[in-house]
């Protein structure tokens, strides 16, 4: 199980701004170890964020997203106190979901 995500969601004007920091190696599969063997690819390939049962952002990622990925987006239709939930899935099938209340 990987480390939890850090999720900040705050009301900015009439919208909600969400900032997410995930803990993941995002290994591209192109790097080599000191002994010359290739480090296998290990990266988040799908991210879905939802609020009140509605998907507010979905993304397909490749291995070119930086290690410990950062993601920020804005949506409308939610208020302070509502929960925003973010789920990622990686290419090895690992998945993690975390949520945070909108501040």
């Amino acid at each position, binding site marked *: 199980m990987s480390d939890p995500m850090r999720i900040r969601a705050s009301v900015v004007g009439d919208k909600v701004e969400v900032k997410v920091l995930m803990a993941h190696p995002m290994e*591209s599969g192109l790097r080599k170890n000191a002994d010359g063997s290739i480090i296998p690819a290990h990266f988040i390939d799908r991210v879905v964020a939802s609020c009140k049962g509605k998907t507010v*952002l979905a993304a397909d990622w490749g291995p070119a997203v*930086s290690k410990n990925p950062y993601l920020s*987006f*804005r949506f*409308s239709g939610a208020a302070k106190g509502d929960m925003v939930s973010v789920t990622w899935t990686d290419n090895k099938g690992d998945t993690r979901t975390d949520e945070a209340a909108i501040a």
Partner: protein
Amino acid sequence: MTPIHVSRRKFLSAASKFGAALAVLPLLRPFAAFAATERNTAAFSAKSMSDVIKAYGGADAKESTEITITAPEIAENGAVVPVTVESKIAGTRTISVLVEKNPAALSARFEIPEGTDAYAATRVKVGETSNLIAVVQTADGTFYAQKPVKVTLGGCGG
């Protein structure tokens, strides 16, 4: 034969049909589930913007000034290049972030549902000095904008 047996026969026949329908269901469902989450591997292995757009079924992209890419002009560390893309084109449905000279051009593709701003910020790896390209898909076609980023330390050495 008493009426109860007749109804039993009907019941069994109906039950077997229902059972057959049930047996077919699990065969169909995995395909539906697969289609919904299927990853566009062609797009993620494409080398150029036009191949990525083709992989998503788009036609020729038009350059647009209504897409804003915010990224540093010079990135000291190519492994972590902050990128923000914002589209002012009405009806933006997806935003894709591409790095022209990376081994695979497509880095990330964001699906923007109704009610979400056509805006996404993330950090990407940039292997060498290259153009960052943002591709926006709308109901009216495909648009793009690009911005060069100089990299002093490549993003693939880690």
